[in-house]
């Protein structure tokens, strides 16, 4: 036996203290009587108020000493080392996907899941411990394994739903690392079944339990809100539930209701609406679906109509129609095209050199496509066959919505290792194909000729171009739409001193150079960014809204497929079995018996 709180042995002082109290005697007032023969000798143990008397052993003293001894031992938290009743570890994973914000379970699926986790924490027995993992875009360890229910409750208070599907595979990996070396543990997933499915069933090192939340799949939302060059507004509404719904779309221009569009949506169907009554000079447009339903975050969509500030781009190329058309897709660009060696000197927000490298140092942010070998910030070698195209990091924001599945590159410049400060975005079996430089001045290098690849023929090319422009241009976030919880790189003007971001709820955040990514984007709506420049301030906007239709399909899903790890063979691990609850229980029983004995003696 060992003691977890040996300092509590000080409580054993209560034993001699109790005996000391029995040495004190009662100062009794004298009463003269005619006889003593009718009075049976009887002395009860009551409050003493005078010293001293001979110690009279009695049942009450024995019971009190035993109770005090057991309570003191209980305070010391004795533990037995044994195989039976091992301390088990429970890992509770809470899905923080956007669909968990549905209110078909009151107050919401996410809060119900948190309450369920609290309940599990409350049912922990002595010696057991629990860890909490929040499944968001990345799995987050809210609480390491602990038996302290108060710290678990405090950790659960910090849990918030995220903006993207929870990463179940990452959560399992984290849970397995927690349960490593702790056989007998268990993993409990509280989810509505909409976490990101892993590529293959993960192996879980413990007993897995799926605790579903959610009751209904009825939900409708706005999937798309965009504006065509002609000025009309395009909307796609979706009904993810089974029943037909009569809906209205309220159109707000700069906060004022300007139109209401009634529509009817059958179950599991979509409807496209074109709206051409956009008032002139509208800066912000909001479409709001009524009546509301269980998932509110997809009932509104926003569109920033205001023209973003123009950005000047210098394109130096012999001839590249793919590139020029991709640049033309982006509004707010003032593209100056020049032949190699004929470019005019001047200041541009972005320099694009295609198959050419200017002499000297680059003047600012630059995109280099198929640079000549032997020079520039990334010295490349001779042309060779790079092999299969692979993403450097599938989670790289530059590859968002970019599919490299059917992309091939015939030849690319040789480059064994990226230079210091550069990282690979797209690679090949042998060499990198696209590298970026995150520090100022920003830069990107594509090591192959677009004409020697089928990339320009894929849908991925204009998207990749837009992502690169947003990354390289100052103010690349303007008028863009981001997912809830997604970090937004606020590329500011080079001479900006302060960025002030106003959230949809009116809250403000101030950022100073070097302007870290803005991560407080859990609220959906329009975010306003004010840049303080030497010549004044400049306003721009970006939108945060749910863009994943899978998250809007809120019908509770099935448990994710897993592989159950085999149970450990051989002896069960040994652990500390705390016995203080038993000691305290026996002590309370002794005190109750002592009270009964005392009352019977009255």
């Amino acid at each position, binding site marked *: 036996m060992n003691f977890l709180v040996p300092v509590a042995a000080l409580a054993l002082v209560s034993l001699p203290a109790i005996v000391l109290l029995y040495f004190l005697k009662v100062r009794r007032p*004298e009463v003269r009587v*005619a006889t003593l023969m009718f009075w*049976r000798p009887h002395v009860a143990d009551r409050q003493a108020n005078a010293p001293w008397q001979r110690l009279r052993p009695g049942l009450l003293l024995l019971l009190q000493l035993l109770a005090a001894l057991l309570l003191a031992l209980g305070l010391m938290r004795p533990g037995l080392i044994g195989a039976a009743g091992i301390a088990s570890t429970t890992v509770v994973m809470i899905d923080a996907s956007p669909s968990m914000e549905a209110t078909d379970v009151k107050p919401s699926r996410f809060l119900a899941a948190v309450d369920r986790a609290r309940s599990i924490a409350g049912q922990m027995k002595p010696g057991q411990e629990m860890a909490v993992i929040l499944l968001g875009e990345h799995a987050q360890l809210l609480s390491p394994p602990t038996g302290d229910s108060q710290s678990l409750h405090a950790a659960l208070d910090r849990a918030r739903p995220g903006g993207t599907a929870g990463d179940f595979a990452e959560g399992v990996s984290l849970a397995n690392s927690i349960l490593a070396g702790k056989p007998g543990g268990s993993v409990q997933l509280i989810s509505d079944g909409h976490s990101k499915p892993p590529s293959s069933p993960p192996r879980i090192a413990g007993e897995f339990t799926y605790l579903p939340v959610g009751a209904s799949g009825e939900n409708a939302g706005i999937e798309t809100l965009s504006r065509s060059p002609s000025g009309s507004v395009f909307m796609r509404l979706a009904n993810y539930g089974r029943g037909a719904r009569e809906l209205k779309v309220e159109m707000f221009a700069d906060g004022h209701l300007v139109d209401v569009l009634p529509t009817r949506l059958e179950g599991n169907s979509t409807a496209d609406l074109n709206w051409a009554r956009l008032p002139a000079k509208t800066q912000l447009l909001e479409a709001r679906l009524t009546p509301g339903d269980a998932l509110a975050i997809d009932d509104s969509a926003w569109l920033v109509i205001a023209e973003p500030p123009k950005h000047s781009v210098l394109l130096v190329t012999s001839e590249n129609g793919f590139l020029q058309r991709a640049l033309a897709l982006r509004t707010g660009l003032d593209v100056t095209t020049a032949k190699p060696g004929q470019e005019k000197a001047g200041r541009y927000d972005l320099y694009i050199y295609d198959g050419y490298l200017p002499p000297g140092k680059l003047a600012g942010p630059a995109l280099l496509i198929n640079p000549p070998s032997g020079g520039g910030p990334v010295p490349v070698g001779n042309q060779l066959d790079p092999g299969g195209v692979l993403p450097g990091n599938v989670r790289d924001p530059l590859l968002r919505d970019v599919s490299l599945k059917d992309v091939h590159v015939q030849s690319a410049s040789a480059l064994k290792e990226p230079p210091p400060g550069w990282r690979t975005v797209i690679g090949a079996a042998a060499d990198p194909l696209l590298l970026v430089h995150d520090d100022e001045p920003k830069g990107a290098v594509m090591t192959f000729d677009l004409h020697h690849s089928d990339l320009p023929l894929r849908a991925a090319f204009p998207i990749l171009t837009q992502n690169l422009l947003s990354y390289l241009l100052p103010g690349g976030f303007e008028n863009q739409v981001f997912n809830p919880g997604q970090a937004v790189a606020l590329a500011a003007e080079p001479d900006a001193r302060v960025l002030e971001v106003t959230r949809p709820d009116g809250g403000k955040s101030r950022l100073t150079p070097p302007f870290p990514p803005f991560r407080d984007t859990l609220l959906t709506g329009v975010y306003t960014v004010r840049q303080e420049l030497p010549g004044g301030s400049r306003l721009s906007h970006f939108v945060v809204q749910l863009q994943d239709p899978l998250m809007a399909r809120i019908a509770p899903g099935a448990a994710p497929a897993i592989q159950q790890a085999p149970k450990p063979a051989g002896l069960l691990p040994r652990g500390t079995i705390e016995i203080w609850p038993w000691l305290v229980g026996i002590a309370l029983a002794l005190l109750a018996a002592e009270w009964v004995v005392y009352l019977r003696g009255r």
Partner: protein
Amino acid sequence: MLTTAELNLLGRLDLAYGRPQSGLYAGERRSPRAARSPEFSDFRPYVSGDDFRQIDWSAFARFEKLMLRLYVAEEEACLNVVLDCSGSMGLGEPPKWTAARRLAAGLSFMGLSAMDRVQVGGLGGRHLPPVRGRDGVSRVWRFLESLEVGGEAGPQDLIQLRWLRPGLTVVISDCLADQGSWGPGLASLRARRQEPVLWQVLAPDEEEPPISGDLKLVDVESGRARELTITPRLLGEYRRALAEHRETLARAARGAAGRFLHSNSAEDLETTMLAGLRAGAIRRG
């Protein structure tokens, strides 16, 4: 010591002797001996030497036999009043000692009124020589007033009393002596041709002690002490023990052909006498 109203009440009562009393002088109590008196008792045949003046000639005319006419003799009786003067009699609220002395005075008055020879004394203490007639009331009362409580006394002291005469002996006590039994003492009275009456006088706070908690009880006579925690349960045991003690006293009195009765110091004299009436120690005159 007693008020006029109480004396009037006592005047209508009389002591109840259980058997005929034989005294030195003529009195008002029926004697076991025959004598001339207004009350006819019986006939018996004439024998030589009888007083022929007592021959009933009417009976001789009817039966032609000489018959003597007998009459009941009425002689004085002796009332012994023994008052417990031990220290415990000084306790109680109202005091037992006052009630006991008033009881002794009342009984003495009743005896003197009936021309009985009355002796009063303390248990284990001094006594008053016999007095007779109403003239003796003042003497008895002065004697009673001169008595004081103190010391120890018990049933064994009854055996030591030599001044008692055959007759009715009323022992007035709280009967709370720790040591000794009342049986032998009462039996000794019986052996001396006395008719014992044990009259227990207690105070209300001895029948229902108004005490509780941690106390040190001190016996006022012996000085012995006992530390107790008085609880309702202990008080119940006290009441049961007192009832058993009274039952024991009654058995001892019956064993000595006597009577046992008890009264309360808070009661007035009329209520006390009613207790005597119920027990048969007093009758209406």
